[in-house]
């Protein structure tokens, strides 16, 4: 019958050292008695009450004993109060010391706070993306398909019910839906249209009502809608919403369900889900697929089933080379599919942040080490008076904890600021909206700071232990006498710390330089358009309004936009360049059978589309007033199409077929434009005139407005918004942006990761410089006497400066070499962001090396100069 260990351990920790054994022995004895009389259960409860009650009494007890320095007479030979007492003593002492050395205190706290704040902010962003599970009950069994948003209804209808290896598969795409309110105001909701299977596949039950049922997705079915929890709350949060009607895009829909709080699919900003009306012959490839695998299958290992699916596709459909669904076929778990693309960006940022935190810790450790060195005499006296190792290191731990807690407070503030900066800077999209700033961040900051404080204190403690073990007092005292000339050990630790810092700084700086080069390469690509000073307005019309009427409105809106002051030109288009693949259709050249029916991008624009976008004409002409509806329609092709389909021929005047069942004549050739992605090779594309083909697909339209020189696109944007509201009633504005931002988005995550890493590498360089400065200053001071003797014997001041500088340079060079090696190892992580630059790019490495060398030299120059100015007479007298 022995009491449980944990309460006894608590008691042993908190009771005064002199008394703890006798008290614990008594408690054990009493525990046995209670266990005999009332059973072990009661005894256990009793011992827990004792332990917790004692712990609760500890704080006032310790505070009182600390403040009165009371020591019971019985314990005169074994002094020491309850555990906390020493901490309080040490804390007061540490606070006094920190106040007396404000530079050291400030530097340590700020250094650590920068590391902690940044790391905590990144953690807050990364948590929902990398760590939290997706809000689907079947998450583990749901897979997403390759070629996202490229599938069409025809393929889906044919495959439905016989996807090999899947219980069922749903298709969906994004729809922006105009919600008509009670008055005249409309608001645009981000929505999803899907086939009926979607919610059964995800397995999430609605909070209210039902989800889609079979048959909801056929043409002519009753229109229904499912709302997100957030939208439902905004609309009043009444249960009676089920069965009520909402007008979305002009169609009244019955609300059949409300999803639970925290549910999102496929991105958090989607607020309403409606069933598609599947057209079995639809060939507009803009859908994505998710499927529920058959029981026992792993969505990440579906290769045999995918192979079977591919051979089915091959047998049924013919694909052009660029949009071949039979190539690179892959399904993966929905988690991978949704979260995977984000991961490299986050891991890279996270890693860089942790490295910065390490630099910060190492810096503080080096600073503390210097402090310990300068306290050698005090520590020696303490040791002589009987302080043991723990008693010597505990003040250090307490000091580090104080620095840590102060850094946590400052760091939490930095974390809040950093979180805001990061959510807007990182390409997180909807994930950024999912990342919410909450208390976990503060807990994370505090935990990080305590951990880093403990990391920090390990190094000076180790050095203290080592020196006290290897000769203890004599060693310390002798070091004191010689002015530290012999004490090489601690300096070695400090030097190692500097090398570590330099290594890490090199790692971050060279990674950042790689990304800078890569992003510069991307911006150097000519997208074929003039992205400067173009305002972009995405709008969508009401589907119930007849197409002809909508087109008239668009033409009138474009005319109104052109009339605006400060506007050079304006146009409307179906789809802008640089906004990803999609919208391609078959082409064939009339009078030539040898060319297989393949597809090209097709784009539809109004009259001045080319001049507004700054697309250059190569030969022939662009659209003009002579191109009227009816009869033959005009087509403008790009150079890539001309090269592919008319090699060595003049394409002007040739007839093509496909897309529309009317004769189509090529009237001109324009420069290649990055219609899909920025880095893709030029792809064949053809352009139609809006008025000749009666508009694009669906209800979406994008207005582009080129501002005159001297007028900013953003200023034009505001006016354009008002003009459109007036001139294009029935059109909801979905998004407003500028062409240069579209370009930024096309450059993608690399740009944001780059800016982040550049900021971090500046931080790393600054912290590294502080580290070098601290160590070199300490080095110079310690050897002051040494220098003084040499100067007295005739060494020139310049030589002294040179010696100190070369010491610093050696550290930097070692760090750079090791860091360069480390970068080579991790550059694979960055490879997804790299474009036109290899992971071993010499320019990046040289750039980072130069930056580090310069920083290192500047940081060691200040202490070096001070050492060079040493006056031997003064120094030798002072230390005699």
């Amino acid at each position, binding site marked *: 019958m022995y009491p449980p260990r944990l309460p006894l351990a608590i008691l042993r920790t908190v*009771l005064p050292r*002199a008394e703890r054994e006798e008290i614990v022995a008594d408690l054990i004895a009493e525990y046995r008695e209670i266990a005999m009389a009332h059973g072990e259960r009661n005894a256990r409860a009793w011992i827990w009450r004792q332990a917790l009650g004692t*712990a609760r009494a*500890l704080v006032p007890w310790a505070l009182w004993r600390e403040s009165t320095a*009371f020591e*019971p007479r019985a314990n005169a030979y074994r002094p020491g109060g309850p555990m906390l007492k020493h901490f309080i003593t040490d804390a007061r002492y540490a606070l006094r010391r920190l106040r007396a050395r404000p530079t050291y205190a400030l530097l340590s706290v700020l250094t650590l706070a920068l590391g902690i704040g940044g790391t905590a902010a990144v953690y807050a962003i990364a948590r929902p993306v990398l760590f939290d599970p997706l809000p689907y009950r079947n998450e583990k069994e749901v897979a997403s398909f390759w070629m996202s948003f490229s599938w069409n209804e025809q393929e889906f209808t044919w495959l439905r019910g016989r996807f090999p290896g899947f219980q069922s598969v749903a298709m969906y795409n994004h729809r922006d839906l105009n919600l008509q309110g009670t008055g005249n105001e409309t608001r645009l909701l981000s929505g999803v249209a899907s086939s009926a299977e979607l919610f059964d596949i995800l397995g999430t039950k609605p909070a209210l009502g039902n989800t889609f049922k079979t048959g909801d997705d056929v043409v002519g079915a009753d229109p229904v809608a499912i709302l997100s929890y957030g939208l439902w709350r905004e609309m009043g949060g009444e249960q009676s919403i089920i069965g009520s009607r909402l007008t979305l895009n002009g169609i009244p829909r019955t609300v059949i369900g409300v999803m639970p709080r925290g549910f999102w699919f496929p991105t958090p900003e989607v607020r309403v889900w409606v069933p598609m009306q599947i057209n079995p012959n639809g060939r507009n490839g803009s859908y994505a697929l998710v499927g529920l695998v058959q029981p026992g299958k792993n969505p990440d290992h579906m290769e045999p089933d995918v192979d079977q699916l591919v051979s089915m596709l091959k047998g049924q459909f013919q694909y052009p080379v660029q949009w071949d669904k039979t190539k690179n076929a892959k399904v993966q778990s929905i988690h991978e599919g949704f979260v995977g693309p984000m991961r490299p960006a986050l891991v890279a940022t996270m890693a860089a942040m942790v490295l910065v935190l390490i630099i910060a810790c190492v810096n503080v450790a080096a600073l503390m080490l210097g402090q310990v060195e300068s306290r050698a005499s005090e520590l020696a006296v303490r040791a002589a008076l009987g302080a043991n190792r723990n008693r010597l290191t505990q003040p250090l731990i307490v000091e580090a904890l104080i620095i840590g807690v102060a850094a946590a407070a400052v760091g939490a503030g930095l974390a809040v600021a950093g979180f805001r900066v990061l959510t807007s800077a990182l390409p997180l999209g909807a994930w950024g909206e999912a990342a919410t700033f909450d208390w976990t961040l503060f807990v994370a900051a505090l935990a990080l700071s305590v951990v880093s404080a403990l990391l920090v204190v390990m190094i000076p403690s180790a050095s203290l232990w080592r020196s006290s073990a290897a000769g203890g007092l004599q060693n310390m005292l002798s070091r004191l006498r010689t002015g530290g000339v012999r004490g090489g050990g601690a300096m070695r630790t400090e030097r190692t710390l500097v090398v570590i810092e330099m290594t890490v700084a090199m790692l971050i700086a060279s990674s950042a330089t790689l990304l800078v080069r890569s992003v510069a390469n991307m911006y150097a690509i000519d997208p074929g358009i003039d992205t400067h000073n173009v305002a972009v307005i995405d709008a969508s019309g009401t589907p119930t309004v007849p197409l002809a009427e909508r087109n008239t409105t668009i033409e009138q809106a474009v005319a109104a936009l052109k009339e605006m002051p400060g506007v050079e030109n304006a146009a409307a288009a179906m789809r802008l360049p640089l906004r990803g693949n999609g919208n391609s259709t078959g082409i064939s050249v009339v009078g030539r059978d040898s060319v297989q029916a393949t597809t090209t991008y097709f784009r539809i624009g109004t009259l001045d589309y080319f001049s507004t976008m700054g697309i250059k004409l190569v030969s022939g002409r662009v659209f003009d007033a002579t191109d009227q509806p009816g009869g033959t329609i005009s087509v403008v092709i790009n150079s890539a199409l001309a090269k592919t389909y008319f090699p060595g021929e003049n394409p002007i005047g040739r007839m093509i077929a496909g897309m529309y069942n009317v004769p189509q004549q090529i009237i001109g050739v324009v420069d290649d434009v990055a219609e899909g992605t920025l880095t893709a090779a030029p792809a064949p594309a053809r352009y139609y005139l809006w008025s000749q083909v009666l508009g694009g697909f669906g209800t979406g339209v994008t207005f582009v407005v080129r501002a005159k020189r001297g007028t900013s696109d953003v200023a034009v944007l505001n006016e354009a918004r008002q003009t459109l509201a007036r001139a294009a009633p029935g059109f909801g504005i979905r998004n407003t942006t500028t062409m240069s931002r579209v370009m930024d988005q096309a450059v993608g995550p690399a740009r944001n990761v780059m800016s982040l890493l550049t900021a971090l590498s500046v931080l790393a360089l600054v912290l590294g410089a502080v580290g070098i400065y601290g160590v070199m200053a300490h080095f110079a001071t310690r050897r002051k006497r040494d220098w003084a003797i040499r100067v007295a014997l005739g060494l020139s001041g310049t030589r002294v400066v040179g010696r100190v500088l070369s010491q610093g340079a050696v550290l930097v060079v070692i760090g750079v070499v090791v860091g360069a090696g480390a970068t080579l190892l991790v550059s694979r992580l960055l490879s997804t962001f790299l474009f036109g630059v290899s992971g071993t790019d010499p320019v990046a490495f040289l750039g980072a090396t130069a930056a580090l060398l310069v920083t290192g030299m500047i940081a060691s120059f200040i202490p070096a100069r001070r050492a060079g100015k040493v006056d031997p007479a003064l120094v030798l007298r002072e230390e005699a």
Partner: protein
Amino acid sequence: MSASSMVPLGVLEEQILVAVIRTRDAAFGMSVRREIKRVTGRDLAIGAVYATLDRLEAKGAVKSRRVTSDGASRRSFAVTRAGLRALAETQAMRERLWKGVDLKALQTATA
């Protein structure tokens, strides 16, 4: 510290002092705790007992010394003269306060 500056003793201080007197020769922290438990039913945490004993010792109401019992060295407490006087004054103060208050009569009156 003079005895009068300790008066009145806190309830816990008073109980612990009386318990130290009652346990006489074996006045260790634990036996003081058990005595209070036995008589009043109050199950104090050992830490609270020691914290109060420390405070009383600092005030001069008890003194502690090392005794060896069952082969182990233990801290044993005894009430000092000042402690006794403080107890006496506390008791006297209480009696003055209670004088003329007949609880029994009040209880029957309100019943």
